[in-house]
């Protein structure tokens, strides 16, 4: 079966968005000093 082009592009797009989100997250967690760990009773 031939691989449709849109699938390849969408997949690349998702990967790119993930990279950006991780970068933003790392930047934010550095500045606020909070691990943003997802645990509700974590941060006081």
């Amino acid at each position, binding site marked *: 079966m031939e691989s449709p082009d849109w699938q390849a592009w969408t997949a690349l797009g998702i990967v790119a968005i993930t990279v950006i989100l991780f970068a933003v997250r790392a930047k934010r967690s550095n500045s606020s000093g909070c691990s943003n760990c*997802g645990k509700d009773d974590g941060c006081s």
Partner: protein
Amino acid sequence: MEASNDLIALAGNPNAGKTTLFNALTGSIEKVGNYPGVTVSVKQGGMRSAHGKALDLIDLPGCYSLEGGSPDQQIARDVLRGDNAKIPKPDLVVCVLDASNLERHLQIALEIIELEIPVVVALNMVDLAEKAGLRLDPVKLSEELGVPVVPIQADKGKGLVELKQSLGHPFPATPEIHWETGDAESRRAFGLQVADLAARRPEAHTSTVSDKLDRILLHPVLGWVCFIGIMFTLFWSIFSFAGIPMGWIESLQDWTTGIIEGAMAEGDLRDLITQGIIGGVGSVVIFLPQILLLFFFIGLMESSGYMSRAAFLMDGFMSRVGLSGKAFLPLLSSYACAIPGVMATRTIDSPKERLVTIFVAPWMSCSARLPVYLLLVPMLLGGSEGGAKQALIFLSIYVLGTLTAFVVARILRGKLGPDEVPTHFLLELPPYRFPQWKYIFRHVLDRGWAFLKNAGTVILGIMILLWAATTYPKLDSDDPAEVLSHTIVGRISHVIEPIVKPMGFDGRTGTAILTSFAAREVFVGSMAQLFHVDEADEDSETRNSIRDQLAKETWPDGRKMFSPAAVISLLIFYIYALQCLPTTAVVARETGSWKWGIGQFIFMTVFAGVASLIVYQLAKLFGLA
């Protein structure tokens, strides 16, 4: 927090019911328990007064006194004195006092009155006090103290309207002080005198249900039998009972994969969804039932009051490794997740003991390691899941982690030396209560949600990146092995293979270990992706197909790659390695220095690597490779 609203703080001794009142007033679902020191940080919420005025409410950790004490109590003190940088000084303090124990609880109220902040006294658990035979006189208490006193039952929601009315403007004036300010002796005497007037104790000592229960549960022999029985039930249900819902999640996963494969043409996106997202995230989500069960049991023990008894029983044992019974709760919680465990160490008075407990807590096998164990252990047993042998290996894994933690704790405690101010074991044993089911269930759901949120964000992200790293750059070839070695992951594994080979792993396993440094449960998903496991199309489990694939893998010279030696070495690595960035961050915050967080990370990783190396080499000598 809006500056315009008045700030009201709830303060009082530990286990006086502050958080229960906080939840009742704000409609929040903060964690409550029948164990001193459940609240270790300040919680904030909003409420309305009887006249509909918006008020900000904060729930402070319990403290016995505004002097000395453990870190959680210092937080409360700083806020009340207005020394906290983040929280302004409260406009009014509601002192929550346990009516059954006014002699003690009044002391903190008097100390707060001395600070010249308006005070309202909430006399909590009046029903239990009256049941115990106390004759309470709130009016007299109010006269003596010069502040409003409201009898309430926070858990049943009684007296809340009256309490809200007393919070209306103008706030009560600071009363005249009938004792010498700043003199603990004089304050104490005044408190005792007031308590004697306002809460008359019955002459005879009555034996309560709690007394009778304690006679069994704290018995030197029977107590241990019960304790071991409870612990056994806890772990047994986690490993056997949780299998049922885990099966459902697994079939759901296979079903979705099937649908997507049927609906989409073959291509990159379909690969990303089925292999990356469903395969990767699904292999993590499957452990939700076990995590929920563990939190449920811990919640049950806390809520009923048994946790203090367990701490009491364990104190003798813990003291041999330089810890005290108070380290038991943090360590037990760490079996679920090291993060709440590390947070719970705030109730430990001795700073050095607290440090040691934090240091070894991640060695209690947390629930995130379960996926890895469940994948690997059956490989030692010829691929079949379940059975007594598997249970035995699981037990040894937990025991090994725990014992190592205790040995290291012992050594570290010796190195740190004694505390400057010696602290002694002193713990309140609250009366047994029926568990507050509503809160336990909501707390368990909260936890489950936090876990799912993590799976849906961080783990999802890692899985997508990993998929990309195993896909790009692309190579036009029919040989999957050649394609893989051309990708980013292929190149990385080529580089790290020489490092991990003495431990019995090839480059791909090494890469899977690398990916799991952010969160260890990622390992299973990574292995599935890296060894290109086809998603099972029937109900048969994905884990089985990963195992089948792994069992077929060989080194270039034809030896089996996942020999018993290699599997044991992998297990050892996962028992000891600290592969959880959030834990490192929380440890750094709790100890107040990154030195401890990073030091712990490096120590545990090196320890894991060396242990795994030694084990593999030894196993090879015994012909297990």
